[in-house]
């Protein structure tokens, strides 16, 4: 049973986060080990496994990057290992952002500079997620190959945002 089937959802990139959350809570109500406190040890062990499976599925479906990678995997495409030609313009933007991030401490207002990088990265991330939505919607061989490229971009952007968080934590401590 794949993650979409487990959640009773069609295998699409676009999904309703509220519905996903609702299904998650329903499934946990059915399988969480606390619902099996009086059951046999065997059933308790099985419930731990099932609840873990539900958690993994939820984790995968909730996050756009994980969801996209998982959908590609269902189509037999391994993604997120670099590969393929990256869009030159995107690579340039990435380099600029990285340089800006490294230089943030030398700026007169590091927090503001950091916030600017973060909002730029988030804007780009939203754009890539919308791209993914179109690419998966088209569902052709060509669009799926393009989706694989979008996944690479999303990974870059997530990495940047993670570094933004780390820098923010360092600045505030």
């Amino acid at each position: 049973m794949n993650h979409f089937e487990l959640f009773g959802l069609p295998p699409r990139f676009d999904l309703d986060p509220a519905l996903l959350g609702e299904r998650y809570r329903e499934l946990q109500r059915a399988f969480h080990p606390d619902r099996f406190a009086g059951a046999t040890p065997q059933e308790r062990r099985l419930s731990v496994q099932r609840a873990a499976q539900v958690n993994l599925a939820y984790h995968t479906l909730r996050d756009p990057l994980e969801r996209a990678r998982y959908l590609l995997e269902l189509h037999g495409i391994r993604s997120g290992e670099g590969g393929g030609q990256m869009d030159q313009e995107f690579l340039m933007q990435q380099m600029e952002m990285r340089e800006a991030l490294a230089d943030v401490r030398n700026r007169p207002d590091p927090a503001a500079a950091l916030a600017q990088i973060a909002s730029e990265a988030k804007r780009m991330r939203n754009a890539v997620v919308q791209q993914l939505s179109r690419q998966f919607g088209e569902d052709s061989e060509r669009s799926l190959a393009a989706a694989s490229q979008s996944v690479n971009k999303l990974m870059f952007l997530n990495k940047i945002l993670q570094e933004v968080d780390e820098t923010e934590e360092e600045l505030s401590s």
Partner: protein
Amino acid sequence: MTLLQISEPGRSPEPHQRRLAAGIDLGTTNSLVATVRSGGPVTLPDSAGHHLLPSVVHYRKGAPPLVGEEARRHLATDPQNTISSIKRMMGKGSADITGSGQRLPYRLVEGDSAVPRLHTAGGEFSAVEISAEILRALRRRAEQSLGGELYGVVITVPAYFDDAQRQATRDAARLAGLNVLRLLNEPTAAAVAYGLEQGAEGIYVVYDLGGGTFDVSLLRLSRGVFEVLATAGDTALGGDDMDLLVARWIMRQAGIGDDAGHHQLRRLLAAARGAKEGLTTAGSVSLEVELEGGGRWRGQLSRSRFEQLVEPLIKKTLAPCRRVLRDASVAADQVREVILVGGSTRAPLVQRLVGEFFGKEPLDGVDPDRVVAIGAAIQADILAGNKPDQEMLLLDVTPLSLGLETMGGLVEKVIPRNTPIPVSRAQEFTTYRDGQTAMAIHVLQGERELVSDCRSLGRFELRGIPPMVAGAARIRVTFQVDADGLLSVSAREETKGVEASIQVKPSYGLTDSEIEQMLKDSLAHASEDVAARTLREQQVEADRVLEALKTALDEDGESLLDSGERTAIEEAMEELRGAREGSDAREIKRAIKRLEQRSQAFAARRMDAGIKRALQGHALEEVAGPAGR
């Protein structure tokens, strides 16, 4: 959806014939026990009417230890034999304890064990055994008050407790003869106590500053589901540290040197604590301390001076607050309410700084001392099967990342912090040298990249890897964390299917044989019979298994088993009933095992049926469902 009815018809707990269950808040400074009575959850007092049990144990020569208020009276006069704040030593090694910078009056004994012991007049004891004394006292209180043996308990732990600290807590409960239904995170317990009563919905922060630990959790409350989104904290930060700062201030004022004796230090800490408590309401307090060489020192401490002293400490709690918001991608203004827990949140400065940080006045009207025990009692009552219709569900997370050591002393994370539990994640590793046949697996917990900066949980070895060129073997290491937050690790070589002999040597925990020995010692001490205790445990387990299986058969036996399968299970049940009437604990254990083997397929089918049931009613919706995002 009520998937499983736990109780057996006929023996089901009637409203007035409930299973006795309790919630225990095993605190650094004070502990509490609570239960759900017909009127609702209540904390249980001792015969003198005190609800809080000071977490203090006083050991004596040739007499059983004193626990609680009686023990606390000996703190200043007999510091070496009077153990307080033992929670801070749970799951810790000697180096952790002596390296904490705090001068402890105890004599630490290091033996062969990974766990240090304290030398007292009554013998040498580990933190687990000392905590077990506190749990025993609470157990006695509960059983006297409820008039019977406890079926099970829920014990709370700081959300930020690591695996070794959780395991130590479970071990202490086992020594105290308690059946632990669940370890529950303290902030989650507080949210339950508050949320169920108020029917709260939305995003809540629980800020829990106790005597020795600090936790902050961010939860989403939605129709009885308590979903922890992120948690952070510091297991070595609490009200005790405020006392220490005030005590140092007194030392400077009174000209007391760092070489002061333990008696003097205990008196200073007691005075500091009194001052701290007084300053919750007063603007200034007078202090008086007996000096070692005779004479007294008298002085005044104003609230503003006190706040200057402790402000850096309270500010330290704001970094974890920032982190939970970030980890959960929640902005401070999305937080509906801030719930304060723990006696230390009574300090006006804490309320002010936390209020400023989240941009809203923290809630009052919750008793910060009792709320955790109350939440634990509610959960215990449900887990004991007393509330079959209760839809409450607690979804918690791992507080710290879990990973293992790779080449160059680096940590590879397998499960990141704030992952919902239970969780199971696997990752593949490979060999470093040609012909390598064994692999050492070192399990770590923490956020840093270097092994030396993380906490070592344990090590084990995978042997019997078929010799191959370096990098060819595929070793799949699986981490599983259960609902208590406890980790188990297994490893398997995928090309040949060799399973690891998972002898985890806990870095800071007790081994099974050490626990057995402690159990024997403690029973001998209580002049209880070891064999009788073991038999009783197995009988209780047999009853549980039989009862659960009977319910399962009543529900699904008809639809999921053919008559041959059903007979096989019923035969094994009959066999177990027979063994249970005898007096051979090992025979009961064997009969339980056999029954489990026979009912394995049935259990799996019931789970699959559960998935179908959970998804029923959605099929139509899917076809016509909205295509929105």
